[in-house]
C-alpha cells in the first residue's frame, strides 16, 4: 500500500464515476455516479494526509500544536466534502422530483429541450 496504489484506486473510482455520468440515461444513476466521483477525490485527499508530510513539520521551526494538526488537513477536507455532498444529494433529488412532476420521466434525453 504505497501512495501510488491508493492514487490508482482513487483514479479508478473517479473514472468509473465519469463513465457513469456520461453514459447513463436515468437521472438518478447520473447522480449516483456523481457521488462516486466525490468519493474518489476524497480518498486521494485522505491518502495525501496519511503519506505526505505536512509542510509545517518539515521546516526546521520548533513544533507547535498547530503544525501537528496541519497533518490532518486531508481529514478536514474529507469531512467538509461529505457534508457538502449530503446537502447536494438532497437538493439533487428534489430537482429530480421537480423534473418528474413536469415531464413524466427522469430520462435525461427527455429534458433536452428548453421551455417553449
Amino acid at each position, binding site marked *: 500500500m504505497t501512495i501510488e496504489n491508493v492514487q490508482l484506486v482513487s483514479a479508478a*473510482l473517479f473514472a468509473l464515476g465519469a463513465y457513469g455520468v456520461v453514459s447513463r440515461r436515468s437521472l*438518478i444513476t447520473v447522480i449516483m455516479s456523481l457521488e462516486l466521483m466525490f468519493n474518489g477525490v476524497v480518498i486521494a485527499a485522505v491518502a495525501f494526509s496519511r503519506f505526505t508530510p505536512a509542510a509545517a513539520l518539515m521546516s526546521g521551526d520548533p513544533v507547535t500544536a498547530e503544525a501537528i494538526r496541519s497533518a490532518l488537513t486531508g481529514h478536514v477536507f474529507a469531512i467538509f466534502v461529505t*457534508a457538502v455532498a449530503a446537502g447536494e444529494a438532497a437538493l439533487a433529488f428534489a430537482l429530480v422530483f421537480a423534473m418528474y412532476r413536469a415531464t413524466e420521466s427522469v430520462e435525461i434525453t427527455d429534458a433536452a429541450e428548453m421551455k417553449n
Partner: protein
Amino acid sequence: MSIMEVSTLTTIAFWAASAMTLGFAAIVVTQRDVFRAAIALAGSFLGVGILYFILSAEFVGVVQILVYVGAISVLMAFAVMFIQDIASGSRPSQGRIVGAVVAVLIFAALAFTAYNTNWSTMDEITDPVAVAALTEGYVEIGEGNEMTIVTTAPESSTDVVIENDGVFVDSTSALGVSLIREYMLAFEIIGLLLVASLIGGLMLMRDPPQRDESEQETGGASV
C-alpha cells in the same frame, strides 16, 4: 519511521477493500435495474469507509458510514421507490463508447501523474518530537502562545498539561480542535449551507401552485 511501513495484512486488507469498492462501483454504472444500482452504491460507500479505516482515518471512516451509507443511500433508494417509471430500468444511452474512452483517458492521466510525481515521504521528517507526535504520542504544556510540545511530561510542572495520542493513532481530538480553531469559518458556513439545502429541498417539494388552464401547457416546475 514506522508510519510509512505497513504490514502485509494491511496491504491485503487494502486490496480487498479496493476490490469491493471498485466492484460495486462497476455494478452501479452498468446495472440496468436502478434499485440494485442504489444498493451497490451503498456497498461501494461501505468499501470506501473501510479504506479510510485502513488509511488511519478512523473518524472520517465512521462519518462516511454514518452519512453516506446511513443517509444518502437511503435517500437514493427512496427516490428510486417513489419514481415508478424507472422500475423498468435504465437503458444506456448512445454515449457509451465515448464515455468509456473518456473514462480510460482520465484514469490514464491520473495514474501517469501519480506514478511520475516525486512524492515526499514521511521519512523526511527529522524532528523527533514531530515523529512522536504523529506516531506515538505527545504532551502539550502551557497555554495559548506559550505552549510547548514535548514527548514526555516533566515530573513537576504547574502548567496545564494535556497528553495526546499520536495524531494518526487517534485523530479525533486533533480533528475536533482544528475544526474549532483553524477552520471555524468553514465550519459555520457548512452549517449555513446545510440549512440552505434543507430549506431549498422543502421549497422544491411543495405542491405546485394552482395555475389556469392556458398556463398548464407550458409545464415546468416553478417555485
